[in-house]
C-alpha cells in the first residue's frame, strides 16, 4: 500500500517538566488527506505533544519536519503562519471580545488598512451558519456557554487556510448534533488534502472519523496503527495497558423513590430558563438531556444558588429554602460541579490537595482548618480512586493535564458527601478508564442515598446512570421521562427534536 509523504513528521520528541517527564522519544507523522487520532489516557502527553509542535513549549529533544524541512516554531504565531491551525484543549479565546472578533482576530478583513467591522461580522455569521449555529456574533463571547465557545474556537481554526489542522478534544462538551457538523467539516477539509490531528476520549467518534492513530502511554509512544485494523478493545488495552471490563447500564433494577429531597416549583430566571418544576428524590439520579444552549446548565445553577431565580421557589427536604448564594445551597448540603473548570472551578495557582479540600474548608470556615491527616486521607483516597496523575497532591493544578484537572474538580465535590450532587458535564475530557470509574462512583453514592442531578452531552452516559431523564429544549423543561427499557438514545433524540409533544 502506498503511503503519501507526510506533511508533518515529529521524531524523538522529549519534554521534561519539573518533576514530570511528559514526553519521551515520541514520533508522530501526519499524512495529507487523513484524520489522525492521537490517543492516550489523561496525562499521557497528547496536549504536550501538540504544544511542543506549535512552539508553546520548546522541545528538549527531537526534530520536527514540515513538508520535508526542519522547523522550530518560537510560538503559535509562527506555527500558524507556517500553515498549522490549532484548537487547543481548553477553550483559549478572549471572553471579553465579541464572537466575530474571536474568530477573526489577527486576520481581520481590512479595507485601506482599517478593520472592516461590517464585513467581519457578516463573514463570522456566515461561517457559524455553516456549522448550523445561529448566534449574535457581536455579543461578547463570555455571554455564551462553554459548548458554544468550543464551536467558535473550531470555527476560528477551520477558517484558516492551513495544511495541518489540530483539534485537541474539540468535542468534549459538544452534543451529537454539533459533533456531526464538525465531522462534516472535517471530511470536507480532508478531501482538500489537509492533514488533521484529532484528540478525543470518545472512542465512537474516533472510529467514525479517523483513518490512523498514534497511541501514547505515560509520555511514551506505543505505536501507530490504522484505525480499521485495531479493535476498540485492543485500543483501550494499548492505552491503559490492561483490559477494560465492558460497560453496562449501572442501575439495573427499577426502584421507587418516595422521599423528595429537592422540589423546584415554577423556578425560572428571565432570559435564561423558563419556569420549571422538578423533584429530585433521595437516592435518585436525574439526568438532563438537551441540545447545546438548551438551558441545562442554567437549571443546575439555579438549584445551587449560583444565579438568582426570578420566579418560583425551592424546597429542600420539605422546608422552603431561599437559595440565594452557593453557600446557602451548601448549607443544605447541595453541591455543584460546574462544567467550565477553568472559569468556574479550579484555582490554578493552588495545589491538587488545596483544590480538593477547598469546598470542605469553605463549609468549615477559616478558623477550623481541615486537619492534615484528614486531608491526606481524603486526597489520597480520591487521587487513587480517580487515578489522578501525577499522584502528587502538592502539584499545582495549573500544571495538570485537562482530564486530571477535571478529576480534581470532581473530587472536590465528592468528598463533601452532599445530599444532592449536581454534576454538569463531570466527565468532560476524561479518558475511558476513569470515566467508568466515575460512573461507578456516582452509582454507588446514589445507592447510598445521595441524589444526583447529572448533566452530560453524551446521551449514552445519561442513560446509563439515570433513573429519570428530564429533557430540555429552548430553555424549557419539556419532558420528564422514567428511564426504563423503552428509553434509548434514539427516543431521547426524538423527544428533544419534537419538544416533547410526540
Amino acid at each position, binding site marked *: 500500500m502506498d503511503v503519501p509523504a507526510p506533511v508533518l513528521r515529529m521524531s524523538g520528541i522529549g519534554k521534561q517538566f519539573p518533576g514530570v517527564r511528559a514526553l519521551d522519544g515520541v514520533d508522530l507523522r501526519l499524512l495529507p488527506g487523513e484524520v489522525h487520532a492521537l490517543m492516550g489516557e489523561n496525562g499521557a502527553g497528547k496536549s504536550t505533544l501538540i504544544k511542543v509542535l506549535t512552539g508553546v513549549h520548546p522541545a528538549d529533544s527531537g526534530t520536527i519536519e514540515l513538508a520535508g524541512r*526542519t522547523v522550530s516554531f518560537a510560538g503559535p504565531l509562527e506555527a500558524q503562519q*507556517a500553515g498549522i491551525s490549532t484548537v487547543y484543549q481548553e477553550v483559549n479565546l478572549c471572553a471579553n471580545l465579541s464572537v466575530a472578533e474571536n474568530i477573526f482576530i489577527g486576520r481581520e478583513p481590512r479595507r485601506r488598512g482599517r478593520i472592516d467591522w461590517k464585513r467581519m461580522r457578516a463573514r463570522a455569521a456566515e461561517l457559524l451558519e455553516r456549522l448550523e449555529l445561529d448566534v449574535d456574533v457581536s455579543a461578547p463571547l463570555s455571554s455564551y456557554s462553554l459548548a458554544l465557545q468550543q464551536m467558535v474556537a473550531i470555527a476560528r481554526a477551520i477558517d484558516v487556510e492551513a495544511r495541518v489542522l489540530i483539534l485537541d478534544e474539540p468535542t468534549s462538551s459538544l452534543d451529537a448534533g454539533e459533533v456531526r457538523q464538525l465531522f462534516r467539516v472535517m471530511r470536507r477539509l480532508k478531501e482538500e488534502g489537509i492533514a488533521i490531528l484529532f484528540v478525543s476520549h470518545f472512542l465512537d467518534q474516533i472510529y467514525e472519523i479517523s483513518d490512523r492513530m498514534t497511541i501514547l502511554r505515560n509520555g511514551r509512544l506505543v505505536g501507530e496503527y490504522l484505525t480499521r485494523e485495531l479493535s476498540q478493545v485492543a485500543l483501550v488495552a494499548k492505552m491503559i495497558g490492561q483490559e477494560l471490563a465492558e460497560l453496562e447500564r449501572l442501575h439495573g433494577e427499577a426502584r421507587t423513590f418516595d422521599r423528595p429531597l429537592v422540589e423546584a416549583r415554577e423556578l425560572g430566571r428571565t432570559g435564561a430558563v423558563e419556569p420549571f418544576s422538578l423533584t429530585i428524590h433521595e437516592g435518585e439520579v436525574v439526568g438532563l438531556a438537551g441540545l447545546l444552549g438548551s438551558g441545562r446548565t442554567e437549571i443546575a445553577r439555579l438549584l445551587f444558588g449560583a444565579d438568582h431565580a426570578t420566579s418560583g421557589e425551592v424546597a429542600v427536604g420539605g422546608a422552603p429554602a431561599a437559595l440565594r448564594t452557593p453557600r446557602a445551597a451548601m448549607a443544605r448540603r447541595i453541591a455543584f460541579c460546574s462544567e467550565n473548570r477553568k472559569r468556574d472551578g*479550579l484555582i490554578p495557582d493552588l495545589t491538587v490537595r488545596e483544590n480538593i479540600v477547598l469546598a470542605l474548608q469553605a*463549609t*468549615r470556615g*477559616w478558623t477550623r482548618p481541615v486537619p492534615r491527616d484528614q486531608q491526606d486521607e481524603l486526597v489520597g483516597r480520591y487521587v487513587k480512586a480517580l487515578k489522578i496523575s501525577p499522584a502528587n497532591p502538592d502539584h499545582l493544578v495549573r500544571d495538570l493535564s485537562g482530564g486530571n484537572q477535571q478529576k480534581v474538580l470532581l473530587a472536590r465535590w465528592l468528598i463533601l458527601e452532599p445530599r444532592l450532587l449536581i454534576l454538569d458535564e463531570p466527565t468532560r475530557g476524561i479518558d475511558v478508564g476513569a470515566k467508568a470509574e466515575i460512573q461507578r462512583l456516582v452509582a454507588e453514592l446514589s445507592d447510598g442515598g445521595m441524589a444526583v442531578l447529572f448533566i452530560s452531552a453524551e446521551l449514552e452516559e445519561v442513560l446509563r446512570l439515570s433513573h429519570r431523564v428530564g429533557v430540555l429544549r429552548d430553555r424549557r423543561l419539556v419532558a420528564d421521562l422514567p428511564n426504563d427499557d423503552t428509553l434509548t438514545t434514539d427516543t431521547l433524540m426524538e423527544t428533544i427534536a419534537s419538544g416533547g409533544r410526540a
Partner: protein
Amino acid sequence: MRRLLWPLLVLAALLAVNLFFTPSFFSVEMKEGHLYGSLIDILRFGAPLILVSLGMTLVIATGGIDLSVGSVVAISGALACLRISEDGGVLSAVVLALGLCVLLGLWNGFLVAGVGIQPIIATLILMVAGRGLAQLITDGQIITVNSPSFKVIGGGYLLTVPFGILLVLVVLGVTAFLTRRLALGVLIESVGGNAEASRLAGIRSRGIVITVYAFAALCAGVAGLMIASNVSSADGNNAGLWIELDAILAVVIGGTSLAGGRFSLGGTVLGALIIQTLTTTIYSVGVPPETTLLVKALVVAAVCLVQSPKFRDKVFRRAGPRASSRPAAEEKVRVTA
C-alpha cells in the same frame, strides 16, 4: 523556599557593599543596655515598612491593592498623639487610634467587596481624604508628645531588643498563624486566584476581602504608632508619605504577584528588608541626594532581573554549553498559508 533564594542573595550583596564602605557595619554592641548597630537600625527603621507590607501582602493576594495605607499611618499617629497630648492616657489613645484604623479598613473593604469598586480607586479615595483627615486631626501642625510609655512602641527597648522589632515579630507570627496554621491563607489565595470559582466553592469571599483590608489598615495603624512614637510626634502631613509604594514594591520583590493568588509572607519581609537596607546603604555610603534615585533604580532593576528565571536563562546559561536541540533560525521555513 527556593523562591526566596534570589531575594536573599540580593540582600546579602547589599550588606556586603556596606561592609566594604563601613567596616564596622556588622558590629552590634551594647550601649546603655540596648543593642546598637547598623543592622539593628535596619530592622528598627524597617519595622513600620514590614508591618505595612504584611497587610499589603494579604490585600494583594486577594487580587486587590491598598493605596490608603500611607494615610492610615498618618491618621493613626495623629490621633494617638492628639489623645496623649490632651489627657495622657497612652493605652486608651492606642486603642482609639487602632480602632479608627480598623474602621477605615472596613470602609475600604466595604467599597471593594460590598459596592464592587475597583480596589485601586476605592482606596485612592481614602488615600486622598485620609491625608486630609490626618491634617485635620493635627491641625496641620506637628503634635509633639512627651510620654515615655508611648515612646516605647517605636523607640523603646525590651530585654535589650528594640520594641518595634519584637512587635513586628509578634505581628508576623500572628499573621503566619492565621494564614498558614488556620485556613485563612488558602481561602485568601483562592479568592485572589479565581474569584468566581471561589464563590461557587462556597467561600465567603466578601467577608474575607473585608477582613483583609481591615487587617491591612490595622497593620498600617500599628506602623503609624511606631513612626509617631519613634520621633515622639505626629506629622499628619508627611508621616507615611509614599509608604504604599514601598510596601507594594516589597510585596512584589517578595515574589507575590500583583494579579493575586499565591503569597509569601517571608518573601515580603525580605523585600521590605531589601528596601530598608538599600535606604540605609545610600545614607551611609554617602550617595548624593541627586543620584539616590538612580541607585534605587539600578538596584530595583537588578533585583527583578535576577529574580526572573527567563533572564537567568538568557544571561547565565548563554555562556555555558547548551545542548541546542533547536535548529538555527535561518533553517526556519515560512510556508505561506
